[in-house]
């Protein structure tokens, strides 16, 4: 569990994070969304104790990150910029981290295997592609088998295989009961992985909600209906409280009634339907609406 209370970070005159509060619960994937510069990375660095908050508090499992005796076993983080010395191999990079905690060397082999980079473990990290660097960063985050996993833009630079791997991994981590906070500026990515959303803009909280609720709130669902008897159907729908608009002859866009209701109404009135399609706003549309 991550609790963020009234977190503020100022750099001179600019305010990167402006009184942010939210809670990340275990057992589900929480997407941390916002445009570039919204304060996502800064917030994540403050949670991990790398950046000192100007005000406010971030707690992991009830304590500040730095108060934990074995922090890597409590929370693992992949931070946006690379955190690897180019001159060391993936293996020695991870060994260096593991040994601070007295983790067995065998654990390094396990996470290298899990991240799919065991075959390049002895190569200098300077020769790694962006995707391999990203996998190494995720391996480092998993090293201490932490209950809280924080990933900043994990699919950046990954090929389609890697993207799929990250998606599956994130879902599995949450299914294990871990707390998972994943940042992204890619809505489509969050739409398929996140259960819960924390959306920020300009360092402030814009929404703390579920994917469905957000889409429903910002852009109500509608149903597209095509019928040769549009005029008759329209009056029938209006009398049942629906809102109807039409962009072309024979096509209606209906809000306020769902597809089964519309179908039943049409059947009762003996109206032939050619199409009955529920339309849902995409997360992307909802997000654009929210951050506009």
């Amino acid at each position, binding site marked *: 569990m991550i609790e963020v209370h009234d977190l503020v970070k100022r750099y001179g005159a600019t305010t990167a994070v402006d009184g942010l509060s939210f809670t990340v619960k275990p057992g589900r994937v929480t997407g941390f969304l916002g445009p570039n510069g919204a304060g996502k990375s800064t917030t994540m*660095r403050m949670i*991990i*104790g*790398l*950046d*000192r908050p100007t005000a406010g508090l971030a707690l992991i499992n009830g304590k500040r*990150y*730095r108060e*934990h*005796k*074995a*922090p*890597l*076993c409590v929370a693992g*983080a992949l*931070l946006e*910029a*690379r*955190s*690897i*010395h*180019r*001159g*060391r*191999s993936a293996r*020695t*990079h991870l*060994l*260096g*981290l*593991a*040994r*601070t*905690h*007295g*983790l067995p060397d065998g654990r390094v082999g396990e996470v290298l295997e899990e991240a799919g980079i065991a075959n390049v473990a002895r190569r200098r990290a300077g020769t790694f592609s962006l995707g391999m660097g990203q996998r190494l960063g995720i391996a*480092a985050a998993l090293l*201490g088998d932490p209950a809280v996993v924080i990933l900043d833009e994990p699919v950046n630079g990954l090929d389609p295989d890697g993207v799929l791997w990250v998606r599956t991994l994130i879902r599995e981590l949450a299914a294990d009961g871990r707390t998972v906070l994943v940042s992204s500026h890619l809505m489509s990515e969050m739409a398929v992985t996140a259960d819960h959303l924390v959306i920020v803009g300009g360092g402030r909280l814009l929404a703390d909600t579920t994917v469905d609720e957000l889409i429903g709130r910002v852009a109500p669902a509608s149903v597209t209906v095509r019928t040769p008897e549009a005029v008759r159907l329209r009056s029938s729908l209006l009398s049942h409280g629906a809102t109807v608009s039409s962009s072309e002859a024979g096509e209606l866009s209906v809000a306020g009634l769902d597809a089964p209701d519309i179908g039943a109404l049409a059947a009762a009135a003996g109206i032939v339907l050619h199409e009955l399609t529920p339309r849902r706003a995409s997360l992307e549309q909802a997000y654009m609406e929210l951050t506009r």
Partner: protein
Amino acid sequence: MKVTFARVVRSEWTKFLALRSTWILFALVAVATVGLSAAIARNASAPSSSAPFLGVDVVSVLLGIVGIVMMTGEYGSGLVRATFAAVPARLPVLGAKAVVLTVAVLPFMAVVVLLSAWVFRVVGGPLPGSGDHIVGAFVAPVLLALLGLGLGALIRHTAAAITVYVLAILVAPALLGAALPDDLGERLVKYTPVAAAQALYTDRATDPTGMLAPGPGGVALGVWVVAVLVAGAVVVLRRDP
């Protein structure tokens, strides 16, 4: 599982040995010290006490850079974020690096300096100076390496830290005498890190006023090292990586 200082030292030791630059710089240090000693033994007609260890002046720069890069390499690559995420208290990292640097450089320089002395005797005859100078010659570079580590923590940027190190260690002392009024410069020069370091392995009979005795020289250098390391520690704790 928990973070302990001994474990952080072990981690830093792993990281130190895994870098190619560590081995290259150490090889350069060994070749430069022993090679210069042999060349001087062959060519000097009346060698001074520091003659067998003139190479130490050169390697002190290299070892200072080893110390600098231990810290700035973390900041430059972004590794420092992973390191401080693993050791959020941060100070144990600087302490562990100091331990690793000392444990690696001290025995290494002892061997290199003894080898230099032996080569000097084989090539050029009896060793000038006293046995204390041999100890001074391998302790001084360790202290200068630690000074570099402190500078690295303080400045965080490799090129800037090396520039400051070279200017402060090598160039500034030479300018002090000329720049300051009367003999003030001359009286201060001997307290600069490089002059204090040289006092540890040079017979001051030739220049009794311009150089500290080994004891005070060691203290002066020690004060420099502690001051810079403390300043570096404050920056490590205070500034966001």
